[in-house]
Structures are given as C-alpha cells and as structure tokens.
C-alpha cells in the first residue's frame, strides 16, 4: 500500500512539474482588454510582439483583444472577464480594477514609465470636407445649427476626455465661472443627436452613417478616419485648447497569476515602450513617449495647447467624482 502510494506520488510529481512546463513552452495565450479605438494599434502590435517573443524565447504567443467603451471594459474585467492585460482609455478605469476588483496593486501606475502610459493622444475635431459649418474651436460647437457627435461619458473613456477638454475651454472663456461653464456644456450636449457607447461607435455614426457636422475624436481616431476610412472626405481641426490624454496600461495581476502569464504579460507591456513598440504606436497615430520616436514623427502631430488631468482637474478621481459620478455635472446638464 505504501509502495503504491509512493509510486503515485512520484508519478504525480513527474507529471505535475514536467508535463505543464513542456506544454507551456509551446503556446501562450494572452487576453488584452482595451478601449474602443485601439483595434488597429493592437492588431499591428500583437503581430510584432509575437515575432519578438518567438525570437526571444521560442514560444508562440497568441494575443486576443477585446474592445469597447473603456468604462464598460473595466466593469467587464471586474465582473470576471479573465484579462491578462488592460489597456484602457484613462487611469480612473484602471483604478477601478484595484478599488472594486482587487485585481491589481494600488501602485500599479508606478510599475511602468510615464505613469504606465506608453503613448498619449489628445482630442481634436473631425469635420466634413471643406468644413461647411466653419468650425474652428469649441465655441463653434454650441451654435444652434451645429450637430456634434461624441460618445456617452458614462460609458466611454474618450467621451470623458472630450467633456473635460470642453469644460477646460469653457472655464477659461468664462473666467472660471462654473455656472456659465455648465451652461456652455449643456448647450454643447443639446447639439448631440446621438450618444454612442464608445468612441468607435461615434466614428461609425459620423463617418459611415453621415450624421453630424463635427466628431469630437481621439486624435488617432481622427487621423484614421481621415486617412483610411474616408480618404478626402474629412478634415481635422485642432482647437485652441485640448487635453493631454494619457491612456494607461497594466498587467491584471490576479488573472495573469492564475493563468501563469505574468512574465509574458509584463514583457508585452514593456515592449510598448521599446523603439519598435513606439514606432507602431506612432504609425497608428498615437503620440509616442520615447523621445527619439517622438522626434521622428514630430511633423505628424500638430502642436496643441494642452490642459492636463492632474494639473487642471486634480486627477482622475476628483474629475470622475465631480463630473461623471451619479448626480455629477454631466447628469445635471444632460437631464436639463
């Protein structure tokens, strides 16, 4: 009896240690849960990383991606979507993974350079060719005959950047008078005929369905629409002021640990910071953070007068609470 138990223990040890190690050496699967407009970026990046990882380790890595409104994606992960990696639109949504799901450490933003934002972007206007409504700046969006397309800030990270950029402009114009600022935002949203749940949905509304005069868009999304979705049909307008959007990335530690993919997930994100990763970001119209690549693509990105989330809004926690939580300014102005 004891001998057979010993034999079983030995066999278990052999299979328990050796067999999985052999199996893992062949294929690693990762799930990157991202926000709406990063489809093209991560299509390109996943291929490059798979080739890099194969060369480095001999392993095949297969990265699946899921896209949607940033807030919705964060909620999906908290509700159990087994993401190894989260690449969301704003830090607040990643914070939720810690606060509501305990899926990542509190100091997640310190794990990678630039507060874990390997690339940045901003908010610009996409208008139809010839800019028939002569839209130049935020002030033009509240005119009576202008139809504005933006997603719902309750579900879309991009929409929250749009909202805050508009808010910053209105505050500046109105000498920080909050009542007048709210009135401006209220007028702007009265000109929004359709609220999509995510940025890609709004692009569809504006570009494919032909609705609206101006799309408030991620810069990368605007470039994509102009150069690839509707060549010659659109123009980009850079407003006098916009916001520096810093989409963050993180390993979802709890799930990656469960899958045994921590190392490859970390390498995946680190690869975003390499010259190759930054080139791919720039080619997909995201502003690179690596100086050498940023200089190389300097001409591609217009100079913008930025406000910043930390400096001008007290960080994402404060901005979320004031503007987008239940009963916040968005609820107040949108219910009017």
């Amino acid at each position, binding site marked *: 009896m004891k001998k057979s138990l010993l034999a079983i223990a030995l066999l278990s040890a052999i299979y328990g240690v050796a067999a999985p190690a052999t199996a893992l050496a062949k294929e690693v699967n990762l799930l990157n849960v991202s926000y709406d407009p990063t489809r093209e970026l991560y299509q390109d990046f996943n291929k490059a990383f798979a080739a890099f990882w194969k060369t480095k380790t001999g392993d095949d890595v297969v990265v699946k991606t899921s896209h949607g409104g940033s807030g*919705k994606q964060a909620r999906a992960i908290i509700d159990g979507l087994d993401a190894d990696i989260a690449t969301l639109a704003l830090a607040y949504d990643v914070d939720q993974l810690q606060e509501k799901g305990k899926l990542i450490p509190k100091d997640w933003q310190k794990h990678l350079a630039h507060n874990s934002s390997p690339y940045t972007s901003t908010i610009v206007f996409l208008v139809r060719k010839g800019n028939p409504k002569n839209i130049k700046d935020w002030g033009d969006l509240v005119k009576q005959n202008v139809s504005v397309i933006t997603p719902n800030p309750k579900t879309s990270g991009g929409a929250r950047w749009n909202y805050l950029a508009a808010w910053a402009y209105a505050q500046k114009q109105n000498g920080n008078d909050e009542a007048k600022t709210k009135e401006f935002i209220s007028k702007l949203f009265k000109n929004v005929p359709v609220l*999509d749940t995510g940025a890609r949905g709004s692009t569809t*509304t504006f570009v494919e369905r032909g*609705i609206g005069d101006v799309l408030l868009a991620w810069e990368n999304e605007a470039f994509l629409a102009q150069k690839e979705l509707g060549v010659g049909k659109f123009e980009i307008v850079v407003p006098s002021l916009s916001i520096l959007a810093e989409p963050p990335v993180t390993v979802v530690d709890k799930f990656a640990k469960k899958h045994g993919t921590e190392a490859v997930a970390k390498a995946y994100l680190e690869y975003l910071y390499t010259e190759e990763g930054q080139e791919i970001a720039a080619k997909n119209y995201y502003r690179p953070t690596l100086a050498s690549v940023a200089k190389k693509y300097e001409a591609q990105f217009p100079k913008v007068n930025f406000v910043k989330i930390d400096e001008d809004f007290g960080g994402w926690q404060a901005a979320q609470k004031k503007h987008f939580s239940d009963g916040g300014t968005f609820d107040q102005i949108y219910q009017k």
Partner: protein
Amino acid sequence: MQFKFSKYAAALIASGIISLPITASANDSAELEELRGLVQELSQQVKVLARKGEINEETADAAKKTTPIVKASSSGFSLSSPDGKNEIKFRGLIQADYRAYSSGANDVRNRSNQRAGDLDANGFHNAADTALLRRVRPTIEGKVGGKYGFRFTPEFAGGSASAVDAYVDANFSPAFKVRAGKQKSIVGLERLQGGGDIKFLERSYVTNAILPNRDLGVTVSGDLLSNKLNYGVGIVNGVNDGGNISTGNEYNGEREYTARLFTTPFNDSTSALAGLGFGIGGTYTKFTGERNLNFTDTSAADATRNGLPSYVTDGQQTFFRYAGGAVADGKRFRITPQANYYFGPLGVIAEYARVSQDVSLTTGGSLAAGGGGTNTAFVAGSNKKLKHDAWQVAASYLITGEDASFKGVKPKNNFDLDKGGWGAWELVARYSEINLDNDTFKNPAGTTFTGAYADLSTSAKSAKSWIAGVNWYLNENAKVALNYTHTSFDGGAGIGITAVNAAGTNVTDRESENALLARFQVAF
C-alpha cells in the same frame, strides 16, 4: 414611433413630393435653398433615428449578456446567468398513492400492532387499504461558477420531514465529477432511475431490499470513451440493505466502499443494439451494528441500529425481520450485475444483487435509546456469513409509439379532450424475487430452527412477485399509474401463534399478497 417617423420621412424624400416644388420653383433660388435645407434636415433626422435604432439594438444585445435568464418550462423553473455558469432551478415531485389489498398481511407473524387491533388467529394483521403521499419532494438545485453545483431535496411524505438529497458537486470535466453529501448510492441501476421516472409504483427487491438507497460520503464519477463507459467510485458511511441513511453522525467509524462500471458500447450506432447497456456494481465494508439498543424496533426503509435490514413486498408490507438479538458483525459485500435495453417503444431492465453479511447473535442489553444503557453480550460462536440474493426482469412497452428510455416519457400528443390527444400509454410487467440464506433460519450450529438469526415461522425466507400494470402519461409532467401485484412466500407463517419448533415442522407459508396500487404523479 421612431420607425413610423423615419418611414414617413424616407417616403417623402423617395417619392419626390418634396422635390417637386424644387423643380417647380427652380427660378426662386431662396426658396430652393430653403427646400434644400429642409431636405438635408429631414435626411439628418432620418439618419439619426436610424442610428438610434442601431444603438438601441446594440444596447439590447449587450444587455442580453448581463440580463439573467428566467425560464419556466415543463423541466421546471430556473434563473440563470446569461453565460449559463450560474443557475438555480426549482423542481418538484408529488405522488399521491392508493393501495388496496385483497389478501395479505401487514407485517411478519406475531408482530403486534395495537393500532391495528388484535392479531388474528394466525398471528397476523391484514394489510390495510390506504391512501398516502408516497413522495413529496421539492428540489432546489443549481450551479455556481460553471463547475460547482448543489442539490437539496427534502421529503415531506411519510409524516415527517427529512433530507432525501443534500449534496454539493464539482464537475471538473465530464470524465471527472466529485459529489459530496447525502446522495443516491451509485451501485444499483434501477436506483439511479429517478423516483418520478420508474416504471412501477415501487422498485424491485434488488433495489428496495438488497442494494443501498441513499448514503453519505464522497463519490467520483464520469463518462469515458465517448460516453460509452460510465464509472463511479465512492467512500460512504455505509447503510444497511435498502437503507436510507440519516444525515446525522454515524456511531460506526467504518467506511463502505462502492464502485460501478456501466457501458453502452453501441450508443453511437444506429443498430438495434444502440440502446443496450450493461455493467456491474458492488459495495464492501466491515460493519457492526449498534450494541446497546432494542434491536427489535427495526423498519424496512430506514437505517436500523443493529445494522441489519428488514424486507418488504412490492405492496410495501414487511415479510422478513431478523431476530431481536441478531446484529451486523463483520464484513458486508454486495455485488450487482445489471443491464437495460431500449429499442423504440420497448424497454427492458434486468438486475441481480447478492449481499453477503456477517451476523452475530446477542443477548441482554438495555432497551434504552440514545446510547445509554448496557451493552449486549455476544453469543460465542454465533458469527455467521449469511448470503441473500434477489433478481428482477422488467419490461415496458409504449403502445402509443413513443420511444422508451431510462428517463421519463414525453407523449407525442398530450392528453387534451378538446384537441383529441390521449397522452402516452405504456404497458409494464415485472417478475422479481428475493431468496434469503437458509442458514438465516437456523441456529449458529445449523442444527435446529430455534435460536436462529430469524424465525422461519414469522419471517418468510423468500418472496416471489409479479406485477402487471399500465402507465398513462397525460403529458411530460403528469402520470397516472396502476399496478396489480401478486406475491407468494416460502415460510413466514405457522400454526396458531406458537413459535417454530426445533424441527421446523410447524412452519407454513405466509398467505399470498394481492394488491392494487394506484398513483397520480406530477413532476417538473
């Protein structure tokens, strides 16, 4: 509303009603410009309405992924998560029976029951006609996290409430499932058939008399070889023949080991053998009964404290009881080869079971319940291995043409007087018998009929039963069943109310039992 508006606007644009004035007033550029603006505005409104429709659809689709699914069907009522990984089901089984006896006794001879009046001249009470609730079992079952499940089935029939099933499951894969708690024993084929699906009102001697009913412990089971081979192994507390274990602690520390293999080798073929299944099951334990109680107070279905069973007929009347001083004392081994076959409307089930039980005789002891009192004294040299066996062959045939199966019957046409449906009708027949070891009725030395493990003049040493019946399935959930059963006995009676004599010459056969059993059942 949105749809109507968009249709209206689209129709206006498409039909040219709006454009006609444009042509008519082509020279008036201001009016032309105004009309062009109107068309553009309408066009935008139509597009916006259409897009809102798309977004609503997308939102509805997304909501489907998070909205719980509520189901109410003939299979029961359930609430589940959209991904199916979390679910709770409410099911139920209610059986209202009537039993009528044209002949037969209600218990072994000389078993006094003051509520039934005085014993007759032969030492029996007649079996009493009665209406009763046989099963009243609401069930709550479900799963969480996809792999983990539970089931809780209380029983409210029989005058008191108890837990029939109360277990948790871990379904790691179809080939590896773990179940812990109070559950059906895995060894018997007919036992594994649901209480609402059995073809007769009562199961056969194989199932009711020899094999265990419910037990407490852990079982591992699964399907292998493309579902052609089902296996099960278990470690349970152990329960006496036909027994249904209580959910309390056990006084005996020994475990019972159970195992079963069942194969359906042709289940993926279209041949006549596709419905053939056969296998073998067994149990083993070294088991001792409780030593300080009044062992005469035994009953058929419940675990008895002496570790020994009593046996009942198809009409649920007790025909065998061990002697008051007999106690389980040693190994118990059961084996049960089994087979079933389904082909079109025909169903056949055949089972055999043999139990080998070590038994000793005791004297003295306290009548106090609950563990108090004094231990009984063992009679030296009285330990004996007693071997009892039982078998059954049962056939069913759906005369309305439905396919027979191990599970319930779904009528082709439900019973409906308005539409002319008559439900499904099934004819059933079974022969079943149980034979007890001759040594059961002799003293330990095997020389006389006195001082035995059971008294042949009170308990029969065999019972042979046949049943014929009809099942009427009104629909998938409602069934009416009628069985006529005849049981004959070997032994079990004597002359007057005297005990068996040493030579056994005053033993006669117990009067045959004839009973009509009826049931109306609703299961969901």
